[in-house]
């Protein structure tokens, strides 16, 4: 199995802009995997001395976010062309990885340049947040971005009243159609030509017979720590009050069917969710 990829990416990383052009080949023969640059086949490398240029997406996001109080801000935008066994396809990468800080609290955000409003909402709430953790409200809504982060952790331990599904659409790391599936997962994730594709669910979504979400309920709008098992530390907004709280997901009461895509795992469609 031979796979080829060529691409160009602009990345703004904590104040430095880097533009990378690459072309590579990956070969799989049974359990053996080999990869190397495929120089000469891909885009022309930029001439020496050429200035790094941001794409308009990166430039817009940098200008929008650079005044926030962040510990880490990485904005990536790129294009890639792929070829695998006669199949060809292309895709676009659009990622924001951000750690906002206030006092001893850190909000973790993985999103896209299309969702900047989420980031401003989280940044504003974080500035108003109490530093001491409070008990979680009995009824709690998870915002779509928090649900999206949770979904990859639900694989293999989904509460019985909800369904975790791979959403059909697009192609996987071998150029095969991503199909509707509930596991075993038929598709493969290949984030770079330098690693062997990994069988895993792509573009996850969660379904529940109950889709009613109480928009007035206290809402967890961001993660304050990476998810461990099904334990979340979240930033909760309850009317005028904002505080950190720990939540363990054991039961899900309802999931909205209005979904937004976020770059968690192999892609994740977040939706408002009631605990």
């Amino acid at each position: 199995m031979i796979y080829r990829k060529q691409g160009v990416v602009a990345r703004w990383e904590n104040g430095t802009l880097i533009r990378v052009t690459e072309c590579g080949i990956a070969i799989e023969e049974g359990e053996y995997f080999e990869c190397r640059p495929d120089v000469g086949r891909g885009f022309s490398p930029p001439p020496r001395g050429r200035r790094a240029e941001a794409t308009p997406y990166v430039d817009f996001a940098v200008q929008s976010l650079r005044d926030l109080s962040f510990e880490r801000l990485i904005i990536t935008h790129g294009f890639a062309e792929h070829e695998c066994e006669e199949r060809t396809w292309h895709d676009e990468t659009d990622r924001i990885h951000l750690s906002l800080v206030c006092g001893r609290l850190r909000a973790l955000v993985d999103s896209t340049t299309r969702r900047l409003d989420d980031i401003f909402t989280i940044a504003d709430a974080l500035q108003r947040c109490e530093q001491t953790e409070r008990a979680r409200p009995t009824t709690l809504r998870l915002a779509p971005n928090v649900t999206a982060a949770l979904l990859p952790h639900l694989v293999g331990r989904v509460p019985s009243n909800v369904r975790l599904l791979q959403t059909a659409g697009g192609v996987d790391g071998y150029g095969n159609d991503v199909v509707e599936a509930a596991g075993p997962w038929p598709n493969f994730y290949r984030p770079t030509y330098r690693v062997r594709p990994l069988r895993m669910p792509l573009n996850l979504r969660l379904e529940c017979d109950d889709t009613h979400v109480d928009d007035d309920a206290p809402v967890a709008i961001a993660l304050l720590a990476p998810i461990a098992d099904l334990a979340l530390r979240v930033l909760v907004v309850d009317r005028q009050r904002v505080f950190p709280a720990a939540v363990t997901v054991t039961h899900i009461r309802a999931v909205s069917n209005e979904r937004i895509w976020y770059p968690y795992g192999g892609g994740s469609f977040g939706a408002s969710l009631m605990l």
Partner: protein
Amino acid sequence: MTRFAHAVREELWSRGRLIESRLSHGEAFEDEQGIVAADTRDDALVAAAERELDRLRAVMPEGFTVRLVAESSTEGTTGTITVRTDTLSLVTDPAHIREDVDLLLRGAGASPAVPPAPRRHVPMLWLNGSASILLHELLGHPLEHDRESPPLPPWLHVDIPLSMRRATFRDVPLLRMQHVRATQTDAPFELPDERVEITLIDSGMYDPLSDTILLRVAASSIGAFTIHERRTSIAFIGARGEPLRYPGVICSREGQELVVGSSAPVMLTELR
């Protein structure tokens, strides 16, 4: 304008079978506008990386999962060998592979001598240079973040030079540790009967926001355990002997993995 170029050859072997082979190369030009990088090939660097890989392959131990990484760059040539058992791993080089694999086997075979003790009251004895990993997290990463060092005893000297380093041509250089080298002068201590003897560390982390360190101990007299403490909680009681080289440390920050040479004498600490 500065130029960085490198070539990396990497192989993954599983009990004598080659299962992964990688070549990577490229160059990056940096000026005040940013960095422009491409996977351009420098034949001399590729040839040097291939020669280094041959050298690593020649000393590769059998019966383990082994990753060989040979890099030749505008900053020099390096070779590292990561050896894994089912539960433990360490990073070494051709000059130290025999002694390090012995250490790995001893660690893998060690079973807890005593049940886990109430941790806060039991001193920790850092063997095999493992105290350098404690110092890596306690002093090194905070230094990278421009944080002050907590007070150290006068007998302890720690050398941690920083420089701008990057893992690949695709990465933004960061201020990183070059090495951690601890020495002691006249710091005798009485060996406590009750103690935890630490031989291998799995991983560590420093959190600048909470000013805490986290160390996952992979092999010790009470088996694997985790230390998660504020930096000011670590008290240095004493040390003995010359610095011991800890098997190579691969330090990851912002997704960039770099080797940081590490050595420290046998050291005794306790938690405040």
